[in-house]
């Protein structure tokens, strides 16, 4: 069964993301390395697309992903693969917001769990500040909601 994603902060510099899928590991792995599949899911909330999705998923190969919401085209990421097997992908990535974030070391494992998959992704950043920058990168799309909440809070003040 699928379950909500679990997100844990481990120590000062790691983020651990776990999620279960009903599909077997071989398919979850494919969806992480084939551009035609990646661009269908590795996007932000509604309205964002991924016009740039180039990758060479083998040790030493690189990737470049780029996102847009129609007007803003500056949000992109680049990186290199260190290890690529059906059970595990290790890669380095940096996001451009447009300023580059420090290198994020990402270790993703696909473990069989019954007929499905238990996926564990461990991100390791070089510093607590870099980890905060990565977490903050999830926010461009949530701004409208946050503005609405800010308005409520300031109205009470």
């Amino acid at each position, binding site marked *: 069964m*699928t379950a*909500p*994603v679990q*997100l844990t*902060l481990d120590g000062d510099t790691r983020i651990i*993301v776990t*999620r279960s*899928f*009903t*599909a077997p590991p071989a*398919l*979850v792995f*494919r*969806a992480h390395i084939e551009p035609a*599949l990646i661009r*269908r*899911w*590795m*996007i*932000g*909330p509604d309205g964002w697309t991924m016009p740039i999705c180039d990758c060479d998923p083998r040790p030493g190969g690189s990737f470049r992903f780029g996102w847009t919401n129609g007007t803003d085209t500056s949000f992109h990421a680049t990186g290199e693969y260190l290890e690529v097997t059906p059970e595990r992908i290790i890669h380095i990535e940096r996001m451009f*917001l*447009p*300023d*580059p*974030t*420090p290198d994020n070391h990402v270790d993703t494992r696909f473990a069989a769990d019954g007929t499905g998959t238990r996926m564990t992704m461990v991100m390791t950043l070089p*510093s*607590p*500040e*870099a980890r*905060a*920058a*990565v*977490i*903050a*990168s*999830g*926010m*461009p*799309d*949530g*701004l409208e909601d*946050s*503005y609405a*909440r*800010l*308005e409520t*809070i*300031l109205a009470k*003040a």
Partner: protein
Amino acid sequence: MTQLDSAFAALADPTRRAILARLATGEATVQDLARPFPISQPAISRHLKVLEDAGLIETRIDGTSRPRRLKPDAVEELWDWLGQYRALWEARYARLDDVLADLQKDDTP
């Protein structure tokens, strides 16, 4: 500009959002805050001034040190920092579930 306008303007910049996310984990000096960014310390100081003028952060005076921290009322309720990031991944994996369902359909004769 009203306080609300300046808070919106302050939040519209990704570097300033990253600074706020860092401060959500505890107070920090300008030097700490500048470290992950490829921009100068004066540039970080300018971002901090924008955040402070918007009422989102404050400066604590501790001897010769001037650590910055979030103004709790203004920011901590404002943004569930981790929740936003979790929501990003949850949205992605919900889409991935659909992609995987299509692949499984293709695999079934």
